[in-house]
């Protein structure tokens, strides 16, 4: 394409340094925020004030920050649950189902120990360990079904995980509502509240699950950057045929990544319902968190499966979901504007990935003198 004597060309990139990828992401966020300003202006609000409210509450208000971090931890687990299968070229759309089951299992431990009606006699560290293990195993089981079916008979993992979401959703409903075993004594369509010993301790106002996020970050980074298993997962993700030729067993990879992914989603369920201060029960609105887990998937996709970059995106979305809701209430903005903003940023981030693959070159058009018959190309 030529404009006013300048030639504009698209070039495919062969490589992209990390700092550039980060720069494009920041530009994408700025672009998305600017674009969404129009909506705020249209609603009669100053975008500057709205963003101040959103970000101020999400990250610079002590109470708001705690809420943001709780969401962040949840999204980080959900994002890792997506990333591990994603690096193997497989799509885990089953975070909701896996986290429901994880939460049920953690509450199941407490229930079996008699924690529904009274406090527990067992020491807290032991209870917590059992709860976390149960959540991991239950999530892994749920994920493992999809991995097994994929590896054994090549059943589409997207369909399986999505359908399992419905099963798990109704299973939770059965357990906590209308006389279900986990039903709250007062009814209310939610589960019993955890006794003191089953509640996760706080470290400097934040649930200890925050530490798990950073341990997982290191672990997953090492898995893919250094370990043989991570190499095999990546090889399988890039080219199943080549991986098979190299002796990597597709069945093993499919099952393993879904076991790991499911376990981490289970952890997300444990975190939100058993570790976030003030919750400590499977809430009536548990489906909201199932849906929220898809933002973990989006953050995994935006960061191209990078376990470190995804945390930044998860933090952004975690904060926005809190700050947006607060701004909506304070400034009387339209219903759902918080999620519309998150959606806008998501689209902007995805659109800017164009620059991961292409660069735009603008050069002054010169016509070689030795070839006077060359014609101007206006196509």
């Amino acid at each position, binding site marked *: 394409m030529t404009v006013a004597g300048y030639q504009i*060309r698209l*070039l495919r990139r*062969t*490589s992209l340094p990390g700092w550039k990828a980060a720069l494009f992401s920041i530009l994408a966020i700025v672009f998305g925020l600017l674009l969404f300003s129009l909506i705020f202006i249209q609603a009669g609000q100053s975008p500057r004030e709205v963003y101040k409210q959103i970000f101020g509450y999400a990250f610079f208000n002590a109470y708001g920050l705690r809420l943001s971090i709780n969401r962040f931890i949840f999204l980080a687990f959900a994002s890792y649950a997506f990333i591990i299968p994603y690096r193997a070229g497989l799509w885990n759309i089953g975070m909701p189902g896996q986290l429901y089951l994880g939460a049920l299992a953690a509450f199941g431990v407490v229930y079996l120990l008699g924690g529904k009606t009274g406090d527990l006699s067992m020491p807290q560290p032991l209870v917590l360990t059992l709860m976390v293990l149960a959540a991991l195993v239950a999530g892994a089981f749920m994920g493992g079904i999809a991995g097994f079916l994929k590896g054994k008979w090549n059943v589409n993992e997207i369909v399986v995980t999505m359908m399992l979401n419905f099963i798990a959703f109704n299973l939770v409903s059965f357990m906590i509502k209308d006389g279900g075993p986990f039903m709250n004594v007062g009814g209310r369509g939610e589960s019993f509240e955890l006794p003191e010993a089953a509640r996760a301790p706080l470290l400097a106002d934040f649930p200890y699950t925050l530490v798990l996020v950073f341990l997982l970050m290191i672990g997953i980074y*090492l898995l893919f950057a*250094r*370990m*043989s*298993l991570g*190499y*095999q997962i*990546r*090889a399988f993700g*890039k*080219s199943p*045929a*080549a*991986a*098979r*030729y*190299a*002796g*990597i*067993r597709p069945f093993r990879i499919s099952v393993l990544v879904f076991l790991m992914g499911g376990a981490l989603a289970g952890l997300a369920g444990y975190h939100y319902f058993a570790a976030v201060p003030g919750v400590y029960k499977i809430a009536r609105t548990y489906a909201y968190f199932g849906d929220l887990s898809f933002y973990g998937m989006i953050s995994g996709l935006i960061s191209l499966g990078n376990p470190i970059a995804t945390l930044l995106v998860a933090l952004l979305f975690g904060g926005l979901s809190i700050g947006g809701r607060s701004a909506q209430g304070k400034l009387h903005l339209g219903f759902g504007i918080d999620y519309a903003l998150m959606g806008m940023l998501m689209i902007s981030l995805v659109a800017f990935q164009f620059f991961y693959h292409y660069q735009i*070159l603008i050069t002054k058009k010169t*016509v*070689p003198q*030795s*070839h*006077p*018959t*060359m*014609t*101007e*190309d206006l*196509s």
Partner: protein
Amino acid sequence: MPKVKDVEPIELHGDIWKHITPGEVILEARGITKRYPGGVLANDHIDFKIRAGEVHAILGENGAGKTTLMSILFGLIQPDAGEIYVRGLQVRFRSPEDAIRMGIGMVHQHRKLVPAHTVLENILLGHPKSKGVINIKDAEEEVVAIAERYGFRVDPRARVWQLTEGEKQVVEIVKALYRGAKILILDEPTSALTPVETERLLESIETMTQDALGVVPFITHKLPMVLAISDEVTILRRGRVVDRLKTAEATEQILAQKMVGRPVIFDLKKPDVTPGKPVIQVEDLSARNNKGLIALKNVSFTVREGEILGIAGVAGNGQHELAETLMGLRPAESGRILFNGQDVTHLPILDRWKLGMGYTPAERTDVGSIGDFTLVENVAMNYYFDNRYNHAGFLDYRGLRQLTERIIEEFDVATPSPDVKIQTLSGGNLQKIILGRVLSREPKLIIANLPAQGLDVGATEFVQRKLLEARSNQAAVILISEDLDEILSLSDWIAPMYEGEIVDILPAAEAKKDIIGAMIAGLHQEH
């Protein structure tokens, strides 16, 4: 600066091709220049002429600029400078459609046909006549008439997936002719053909030249083909025309030397090696192809240390299934495979690598390598499980990088660094990395599936030399090739395959090319 109005091919009348006299220049390229982003000068002022009734071969190694030139002539890319004239009229092809309208036909090496459709449907696809209502009957008659005129045997109602590579090529040629091509560009026309099919193609081309068509084969490595087929040869090297000569004045040696830029040894010295004990024994092995049909039928053979068994055959006669079954990529239907006396018939692939079997697949980009991985990560494909590079589950990437550097050096791989993605390498360099990676494990058995196919003269010679080296080091080699000259010059034993069976196993010293050629075409049954 004077401006010439664009010649719009669309506005031209179809009668540009009337009254052609044989020998007249029908296509001329002047000063074709193309520089790619990054500075690679793929075509540097290339001139050449094609006359009616003439076969003008363009010869060059991979990377010499053939593909670029071909793409420019067919309108796939636009040159930075230079002109193209069709019958003296300056033209500019903005797309292949323009080129086709101007009478240029292209037969791609990688066939661009729809496998599930019939031959006729493929020929009609994209034809201007087929935009509205198609009269299938008339079209079929026309297609059959063209095919008969040039001696092509093809059933217009057959499905393309049922055809051999040679038959698919025929479909592409007929398609181009049906669209009115007067200048036919053939990309590596004989690379997938049997000797018999090649013979037939040469006869068809002969008829085309009688009809005053211009034929332009682009050729990388089949030098005898150039001599047999063409009237004139233009040789490209590094984007420039290095020479142009009448074929009558050329020999294989001259062509190769001009193409590579240095003398090429054609007859590889096969050192004397005393065969040792049997490495692989195959007994009555059968396997199915991807369609579930038995494609490998009761094959038996033994290869010893220091021996090369050449499996000759046309694509699709069970060689591929044989290689995959030996390596465990395909389950054996019946029979056994003994490796150093151990039954490995049902062993997982990884265990076969660990035991010392090695396989270089024919699908280098899809199976043999991972394009998005670096060279180091590709070398890791054969080492991620190896205790030398896997310490308690962690990979020693530094060690792997050193190993990759050694392979790059020993195999003379042209790459800026071991950390670039392997998809940036040319075909020859990719094959060198794959072969180097497999050979670095010092396998006791090497299954080399089409190791030199598509490689240029220099890389072919290198790959073949490495296989002979492995043989000298007492490895057993199974060489699968469609190139009989390669089979004859490298093998100790030759096993021609036809329809999934090994027709015979002959000692190479006694093997005759014509007999093997007949065997792989199914014309020579057991003596």
